């Protein structure tokens, strides 16, 4: 049975439901791919979610998919297929290297793989794009909206007359789907114009022509004559010629060179904003795009007369000067360290009537309340944002008071979940940014805002002073007089501009030094990989167009006032027991240069094995050195940047800054082993304790202080020695106890030995006796044998006699045939002799048995004796 148990194996557990049975997602957990294909006929749009039940990413994405499904289930069929189970069709036919895989079908077109973030809002946005790859542009205002978007746009003009579909329309439609396949972030938008007059606005005359809109460069029309009019070609042409003024960076999480490739192109401005792809308007994004556009707008800057109407921007953008103060105030009052998830919300009532937007940043903040322990909840949950939005709108009336000339934040309890709080920070943004366009061929007038005598309007006007000089935002920074328009062509420090969604990629902002105490997840930094520096937009300033412009300008000018940003580890916590001073970027100067002590500074990193194993030596050192004159400090150099001159390229590095000569720091020589005597010698050699000045009162005082220090040191030493002695005493006692124990044990063993010896002797005696009895028995046996022999001889004699008698009988038979009586007597004698024979043989057998028995007992007793010995 033992060997059989070794071969016991067990097949994998049978697959079970991955999605709940009530879910809008059809869960083919047995991997029925054929059925999945069959289902495709039922719906125009199908989303396949191929998962493996053991896969963490599939489990994490499940909830997101479920949410998207609950919102779109009436238009899209959601099918989940277990593509791991090895009996299932899916596993047999498909070969995935990772899970989950999301495939989308628009009727027969597909599969379109979704490779974006596994977040419900992004997935939903993508699904919606697959559902309607073409936007229907029916009017001039819609065209305006379409063109003003920061993402590249492709427009096709098709005349829908009598025939159901104009020639080329289907190809155009397919190319829109194609672009989703190629460019899974969906950055190129496709639109279709059916109205002749609208088409004329962008100089499209012929039905079937395709137009690529570009903000800075000339817009293009698809060259039908050069390239074949196919879906692939249109898509390729758009991808190749699109304008990338500002790019979203969305690392997919796997190994990738995305940042490497982008940042190697040159200095980059990374802008982090919270982004909800489903939101209809993105005021902050529009503002940033405007800056980007201006920055790249080289032709424009050459033009002598900027068209005043062009952007509908005769007023200078309006912002509140008090924003800055308000923010600083806020960061003091709210010490909430981290919001896992934020979204920008535009208050709906306002944007229709006002020239300003009241933009609120809404953050879910669970840290305030108790959170029930859930297992799979990703931090930025779509559901929660949704719920927060609902609560927010419900409580909107409270924000009418809030909306004023400052950014204000409030916490409020969620309407739906008692465990969550939300924080909303609101401010105003000029509405003009939302409606700018800059196509060179089109000149529109911004729709005039009609100020009706709406009740709320006056209040608002009152509380929002719009016109401000934008420069007064940043009083402490030098601002170059240069205009940002077309700056990218005029400077030799051209920036590439990138956007990152701070809901997904805030970690990069934190790495670049985004303050953990801010409650707005907005951040901008210029990263120069080649120079190994980065600059950060002052986080006390709000991230708006003007601050960004100034940031860019300050970077571009010859003697840039920007300072290299040093990332500081603010998470350092202080232990009471600490004998080594932990230095950070912020405390470096004070601790090392301003302290009136000798400073020994260790550069280390927690991950470096060679540093961590020296901890105990530095702790000992810090405990030994007189604390009045010495500081033993260390700095974690991976979390704290230092000015160039204090950087080091190897870890650990030990620097000594002698008191009064701090600028003459010395490095502990690298080829010496780091131990206590060496460190002490090194310090003694370089410390400034030995002053050979003539002894004055001061010196005497110094001397006494020193001696007092020495005395206390010696006292400590004596204390230590005392405890050492007591430890030795204890050890001594312990040893003594062990010794006496051992003695007792020895004694006991001795006694045991004696008894054993005695036992041994008795056993020996016994064995001798046994030997004797054995000999005796042997003798007896021999005698018996002799007797037996005798008996045998006797019986043989008898037999002989018998035969003799027989012969006699035979000889006499003839003679004495008639004498019956004699014959009978002879017969009885023969029987008697046979009986005798049998009894002899049985005695021999019993004797032999007895003998072996005896030997056995002797042997067992012998071995028993040995064991006890």
């Amino acid at each position, binding site marked *: 049975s033992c060997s059989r*148990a*070794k071969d*016991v*194996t*067990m*097949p*994998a557990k049978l697959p079970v439901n991955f999605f709940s049975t009530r879910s809008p997602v059809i869960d083919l957990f047995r991997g029925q791919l054929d059925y999945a294909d069959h289902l495709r006929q039922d719906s125009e749009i199908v989303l396949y979610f191929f998962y493996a*039940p053991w896969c*963490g*990413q599939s489990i*994490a994405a499940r909830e997101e998919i479920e949410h998207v499904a609950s919102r779109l289930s009436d238009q899209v069929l959601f099918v989940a297929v277990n593509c791991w189970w090895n009996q299932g069709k899916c596993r047999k036919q498909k070969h995935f290297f*990772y899970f989950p*895989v999301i495939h989308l079908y628009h009727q027969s077109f597909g599969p379109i793989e979704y490779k974006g*973030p*596994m*977040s419900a809002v992004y997935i939903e946005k993508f699904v919606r794009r697959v559902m309607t790859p073409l936007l229907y542009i029916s009017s001039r205002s819609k065209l305006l909206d379409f063109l003003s978007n920061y993402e590249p746009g492709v427009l096709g003009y098709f005349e829908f007359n009598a025939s159901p579909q104009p020639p080329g329309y289907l190809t155009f439609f397919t190319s829109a789907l194609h672009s989703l396949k190629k460019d899974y972030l969906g950055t190129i938008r496709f639109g279709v114009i059916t109205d002749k007059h609208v088409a004329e606005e962008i100089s499209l005359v012929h039905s079937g022509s395709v137009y690529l809109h570009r903000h800075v460069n000339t817009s293009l029309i698809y060259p039908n004559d050069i390239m074949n009019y196919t879906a692939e070609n249109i898509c390729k042409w758009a991808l190749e010629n699109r304008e990338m003024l500002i790019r979203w960076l969305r690392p997919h*999480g796997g*190994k990738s*060179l995305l940042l490497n490739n982008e940042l190697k192109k040159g200095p980059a401005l990374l802008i982090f904003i919270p982004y909800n792809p489903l939101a209809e308007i993105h005021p902050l994004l529009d503002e940033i795009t405007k800056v980007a556009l201006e920055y790249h707008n080289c032709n424009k800057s050459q033009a002598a007369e900027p068209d005043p109407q062009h952007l509908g921007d005769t007023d200078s953008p309006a912002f509140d000067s008090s924003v800055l103060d308000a923010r600083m105030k806020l960061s003091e009052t709210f010490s909430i360290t981290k919001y896992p998830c934020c979204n920008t919300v535009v208050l709906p009532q306002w944007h229709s009537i006002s020239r300003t937007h009241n933009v609120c940043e809404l953050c879910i903040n669970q840290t305030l309340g108790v959170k029930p322990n859930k297992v799979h*909840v*990703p*931090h930025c949950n779509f559901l929660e944002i949704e719920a927060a939005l609902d609560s927010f709108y419900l409580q909107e009336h409270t924000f009418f008071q809030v909306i004023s000339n400052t950014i204000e934040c409030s916490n409020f309890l969620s309407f739906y979940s008692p465990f969550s709080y939300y924080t909303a920070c609101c401010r105003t943004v000029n509405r003009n940014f939302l409606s700018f366009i800059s196509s060179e061929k089109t000149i529109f007038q911004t729709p005039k805002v009609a100020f009706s005598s709406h009740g709320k309007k006056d209040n608002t006007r009152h509380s929002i002073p719009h016109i401000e000089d934008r420069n007064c935002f940043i009083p402490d920074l030098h601002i170059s007089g240069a205009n940002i328009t077309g700056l990218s062509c005029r400077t030799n420090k051209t920036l590439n501009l990138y956007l990152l969604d701070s809901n*997904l*990629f805030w970690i*990069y902002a934190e790495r*670049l030094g985004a303050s953990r105490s801010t409650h707005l997840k907005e951040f901008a930094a210029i990263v120069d990989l080649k120079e190994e520096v980065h600059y950060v937009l002052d986080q006390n300033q709000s991230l708006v167009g003007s601050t960004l412009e100034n940031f860019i300008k300050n970077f571009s000018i010859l003697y840039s006032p920007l300072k290299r940003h040093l*990332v500081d580890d603010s998470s350092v916590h202080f*232990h009471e*027991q600490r004998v*080594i001073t932990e230095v950070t970027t912020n405390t470096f100067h004070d601790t090392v240069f301003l302290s009136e002590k000798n400073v020994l500074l260790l*550069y280390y*990193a*927690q*991950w*470096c*094995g*060679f*540093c*961590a194993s020296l*901890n*105990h030596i530095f702790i000992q050192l810090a405990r030994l050195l007189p604390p009045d004159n010495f500081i033993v400090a260390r700095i*974690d*150099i991976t979390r704290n940047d230092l000015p160039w001159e204090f950087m080091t*390229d*190897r*870890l650990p590095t030990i620097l000594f800054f002698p008191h009064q000569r701090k600028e003459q720091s010395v490095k502990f020589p*690298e*080829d*010496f082993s780091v131990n*206590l005597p060496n460190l002490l*010698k*090194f310090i*003694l050699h370089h410390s400034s304790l030995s002053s050979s000045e003539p002894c004055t009162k001061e010196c005497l005082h110094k*001397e006494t202080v*020193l001696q007092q220090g020495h005395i206390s*040191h010696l006292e400590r030493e004596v204390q*230590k020695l005392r*405890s050492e002695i007591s430890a030795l005493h*204890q050890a001594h006692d*312990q040893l003594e106890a062990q010794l006496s124990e051992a003695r007792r044990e020895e004694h006991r063993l001795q006694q045991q030995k004696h008894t054993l010896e005695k036992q041994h002797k008795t056993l020996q005696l016994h064995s001798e006796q046994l030997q004797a009895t054995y000999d005796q028995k042997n003798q007896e046996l021999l005698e018996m044998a002799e007797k037996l022999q005798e008996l045998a001889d006797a019986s043989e004699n008898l037999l002989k006699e018998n035969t003799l008698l027989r012969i006699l009988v035979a000889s006499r038979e003839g003679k004495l045939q008639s004498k019956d009586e004699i014959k009978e007597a002879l017969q009885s004698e023969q029987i008697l002799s046979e009986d005798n024979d049998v009894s002899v043989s049985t005695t021999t057998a019993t004797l032999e048995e007895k003998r072996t028995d005896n030997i056995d007992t002797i042997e067992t007793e012998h071995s028993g004796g040995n064991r006890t010995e």
Partner: protein
Amino acid sequence: AMAVLRSLGSFLCLWALRLPAGTGAAARGLDVASYRERVRAMFYHAYEHYLESAFPYDELRPLTCDGQDTWGSFSLTLIDALDTLLILGNVSEFQRVVSVLQEGVDFDIDVNASVFETNIRVVGGLLSAHLLSKKAGVEVEVGWPCSGPLLRMAEEAARKLLPAFQTPTGMPYGTVNLLHGVNPGETPVTCTAGIGTFIVEFATLSHLTGDPVFEDVARKALKALWKNRSDIGLVGNHIDVITAKWVAQDAGIGAGVDSYFEYLVKGAILLQDKELMSMFLEYNKAIKNYTKFDDWYLWVQMYKGTVSMPVFQSLEAYWPGLQSLIGDVDNAMRTFLNYYTVWKQFGGLPEFYNIPQGYTVDKREGYPLRPELIESAMYLYRATRDPTLLELGRDAVESIEKISKVDCGFATIKDLRDHRLDNRMESFFLAETVKYLYLLFDPDNFIHNDGSVFDVVITPHGECVLNAGGYVFNTEAHPIDPAALHCCRKRKEEQWEVEDLMQEFYSLKKNKKFILKRASDNGEGESAKDPEDASSEKGEEKRNSKKRSHSLLSCPSQSFNSKLAVLGQVFLDNT
């Protein structure tokens, strides 16, 4: 060979394309606390069933709910899991097990045991339990950490292994009989790791007990391997310990070799030993030159350097963690991300993975719940705080729970293609896999102590600073406190020297000049010659002439772009 390489190259390039999608939820952070609790529950599920159904056997058989002896007969799982109990914070069970082991384990048994496995699991487990016992509230002897019952047990077990080292080369046999020594007719062929994986435990033993024999045999074996490396600087897989001829000439970083390289680095860290480090750095150069292809490490012929197997082994996944210890974090992360893609394909790491084919290798499809990739994730998380590493932890918890959890414990996955289970739960599951997972999800664990807290212990040998962090894990994940080594062997002369020097701090006039002692190559200055006769200028000159670009016992500080090297982003060197 060129053709092989070229075609291989194109396959390797393809790898960049097979990238998984979706940062999604992970980028926004996992619920670390809840995963930590799930790991804890995993531990107790396995541990309690071991105690119930398998103790005192070595291992639990999870499918049949019984036990078996595998590497000897020492209740191996219990010894191996002991320090995990403390890391999980279970002090009372730790104390109970210590007393159980003291009474129940006997090494005077007629058992043929693997020298390597007995060292890393039994000696290593007992040593770390000994060093942690005070922290766990066990009442210790006065002489602790230089004496104690668990230390004596470790020493006893180690002494049983010493006969294996009695060979002409100093390289040990692979197997030894605990009662009779090396069996007559024992094979002289030992794998490289079986020769070079002793220095951490044996040097610790020597430093704690004062008997140099352990460290001496371990060093001798290491040097013998070093002497027998090939002209291009590689070592093979198996060697004859009598004749020093290489029997298997595959060179790589995985099975059969792995912990040799690991112990060169960890020995160098533990003992501040430049010689060991310089050996490793030489090997590292050869490994990069001959076996590394686009962040994968392949197997090559040790003399020619030609690729013999384009295979990734599950055991190789320790390498990124090792790299991070010496500061090569960028390369470590890149290799880690490659290995992680294999996990994502199967829900575990197959013993062998054919890189060009992108699939498992025949007969090597199993995953016995090995810890190596998780181990690397833990080290790298310390260095980068990259959420991708927590994601691997999440995937490991989900996979192991979904695939291998059975009523009686966690079963080895016999075949990753169909997730069939085998009737075995190796002792390293509780010693390593669970421990590293827990530590990944518990950044405040005492094991991660960065030196901001420590203990002061008075011993008869003087005052010691202990538990100041910097724990060195042996290859079975048993942590060793480097400060303890310094504590017991601290010589009286050093104490007096320190005392003399301290006098100087309290006198206004300096009496002597202070010149630093040059470190001997063996690390802790064995030859304590008086350097004071050499004048300081001369010393300076010598230093300059000898000066390397940097000390061997140091890490490079991280580059600027490492700030952004998270969530899968990697950067290419400018060189």
